């Protein structure tokens, strides 16, 4: 293993992580909800054809806030950096896997990763180890086996 010092951003990543923690803290304490993106968005899909009164507005307000973040960032700091090397087909396949997987697994990097580990939930620890492990494995195969 070689450390990639050129791209290493400990302070920005720590600051970003602290903001994620603050957002999660605010959401559970003020609104009484777990900040899990797949659950918030997936719940909207569950309402199609079967609306659940009082459960849609908060999800939409939250997603609108997320969509506003890059606009605010653009105005203050400039464009959001993003290098997407994956092709269109890979991106679509990845999206399908993430959509189905996060719903079966009841969470993603936010709900299980940040909130679950902060709650000291063994279930979320197991989920986090599983999705991190799969992420490490698939990148290893793509970059070092079929490269």
């Amino acid at each position: 293993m070689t450390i990639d010092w050129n791209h290493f951003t400990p302070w920005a990543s720590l600051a970003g992580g602290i903001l994620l923690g603050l957002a999660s803290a605010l959401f559970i304490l003020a609104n009484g909800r777990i900040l899990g993106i797949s659950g918030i968005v997936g719940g909207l899909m569950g309402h199609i054809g079967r609306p659940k009164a009082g459960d849609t507005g908060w999800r939409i307000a939250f997603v609108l806030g997320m969509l506003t973040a890059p606009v605010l960032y653009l105005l203050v700091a400039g464009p959001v950096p993003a290098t997407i090397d994956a092709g269109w087909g890979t991106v679509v396949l990845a999206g399908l896997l993430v959509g189905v997987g996060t719903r079966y697994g009841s969470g993603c990097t936010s709900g299980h990763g940040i909130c679950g580990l902060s709650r000291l939930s063994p279930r979320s620890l197991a989920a986090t180890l599983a999705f991190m492990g799969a992420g490490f494995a698939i990148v290893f195969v793509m970059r070092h086996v079929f490269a």
Partner: protein
Amino acid sequence: MQHRVTEFFVGLLFGVGLILAGMTDPSKVLGFLDLAGTWDPSLAFVMGGGILVGLGAFAMAKKRTTSFLGGAMHLPTSAVIDKRLIGGSLLFGAGWGLAGFCPGPAIVSLGAGQPKAAAFVAAMLVGMAVFEIIERKQARQSAGAH
């Protein structure tokens, strides 16, 4: 209205956090997931920072019966570690490793106008809808069996 404002603000705060953290840049995420290459450990600091703040907040949340805004506390109650949890998480991790996007950053990148993020989010919504269809079908079948 107070609730909608908080939810919007928390979404905004979370989105800015993801951008600062580097989570919305798939090449950075993949740099973290590439243990065998030149490894960028930055994202470990994201998780560390998040949990650092979260530990205190969730310890406080567990003791409360209502939220600060007066609503119910929706803390998860399931402790089951089963095939659904692990299988679903493995599928999610595979998708995350393929493109470098997980749900939150993909939605933020959609707001940043990335066309591939839009394709990812569209496919993710289809995946989530497929899950709902399968779940409803199974619920109907098990209801019919009784």
